[in-house]
């Protein structure tokens, strides 16, 4: 019945997912973003487990829809997409490739998030220096803690005078 062996189908599924962009940072795929936790193939059907980035991220449902469409287009007959909250997503799961794409796109990639997240909050002190993704200068300042989406902050480079976004460590 199934002309393709299971291992190939798993590879097909991952390849299809690698082409599904994050609608809010389209330069990243869902694989780069590190939100695909599991891909299980059984015959003609596939189940994908995703972890949401932020609790209220409006892209969560769009991504689930895109994942479903991509896998149907890749030839799967039955596609299930499940969400799993724990362990919570962290920016540490963004791949090296993803970080490079972010920097090329003009978004400063996140630094490491501590296991307990304690370093994230320095109450009423400035956040650590973030290097400008254009000129590389560390002489930058934060303009706003929240950018166009919850996952980013707005910065300005004092050296090249360009504004940029920073993907916040989470």
């Amino acid at each position, binding site marked *: 019945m199934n002309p393709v062996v299971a291992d190939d189908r798993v590879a097909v599924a991952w390849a299809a997912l690698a082409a599904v962009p994050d609608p809010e940072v389209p330069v990243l795929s869902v694989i780069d973003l590190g939100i695909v936790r599991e891909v299980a193939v059984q015959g003609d059907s596939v189940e994908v487990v995703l972890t*949401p980035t*932020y*609790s*209220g*991220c*409006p892209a969560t449902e769009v991504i689930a829809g895109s994942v479903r469409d991509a896998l149907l287009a890749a030839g799967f007959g039955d596609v299930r997409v499940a969400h*799993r*909250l*724990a*362990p*919570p*997503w*962290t920016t540490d799961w963004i791949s090296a490739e993803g970080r490079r794409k972010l920097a090329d796109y003009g978004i400063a990639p996140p630094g490491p998030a501590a296991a307990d*997240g304690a370093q*994230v*909050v*320095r*109450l*009423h002190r400035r956040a650590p220096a973030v290097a400008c993704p254009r000129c590389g200068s560390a002489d930058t300042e934060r*303009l*706003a*803690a*929240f*950018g*166009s*989406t*919850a996952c980013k902050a*707005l910065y300005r480079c004092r050296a090249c005078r360009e504004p940029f976004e920073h993907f*916040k460590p*989470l």
Partner: protein
Amino acid sequence: MAPPGSLRSPPPGEAPNRPGNPSGAAAASITIQMTPPVEYVLRIADTCLIHAQRLAEWCGHGPVLEEDIALTNQALDLIGQARGLLTLAGRLEGQGFDEDQLAFLRDEHDFRNLTLVEQPMRRSSAHSPGGDFADTVLRSFLLATWLKLTWQRLASSSEPELAAIAGKALKEARYHQQHCGDWVVRLGDGTDESARRLAAALDRAWPYVNEMFQRDAVDEVAQASGLGPARDELAVDWQREVAEVFADAKLSLPPATPFVSTGTLGRHSEHLGFILAEMQTLQRSFPAGRW
């Protein structure tokens, strides 16, 4: 082809013609079977939801674009947290209610949010006469600190779903606390006018703070079963973190007051009804409406 129903006037005696709601009937309220675990989860869920609704009033009205975006991003996080908690509350309650039914079809007396979050936060309309940006950042800071401490403890809840929601929400609450704490310092240690308005905001918020640390039978059941902390467990840590920021903001913690508000018991101030009227009207008028 027949003309779309929405263009047809209803004949006399027929139900009003509402596109998407042919019967024209409004959705009936649901009634919750309150048990301590349901009530415990609803207290946190409703606090997140109603605070988010107040923050959302700033959408398009922020003092600067960046802050407009920051306030609504925090509202989004809070709504996401509330959705998870309401889904859990629906499962614990057992009648099969989903997050939307719990948010949009409950009456005021079945809401369990802290009274603080329903107070007007922005000078916006006739039914919301008080509050300004200082109220907004101050209240958000007091709440984010409280929620952060709550999530920290809920991350090891005996209820796995609650622990998962908390583990995620904790990371978000840290950013909220930091952002709002920055603003408290900026206003408190800013100009005479900003300091005066921040102090006035603290005077308005303070009478509602006691409720954050009350302990009642619901807390005791939650604590004993490992579901989550009793509210009074949070008081010492909360005061320490708030006092640290207040010191930089040249504010001091006001003395304790005897008044205890009762939103977590389902007895609300006059403001919640107006919030629910706005928040629920669409689902009440067009039951199960979607777009």
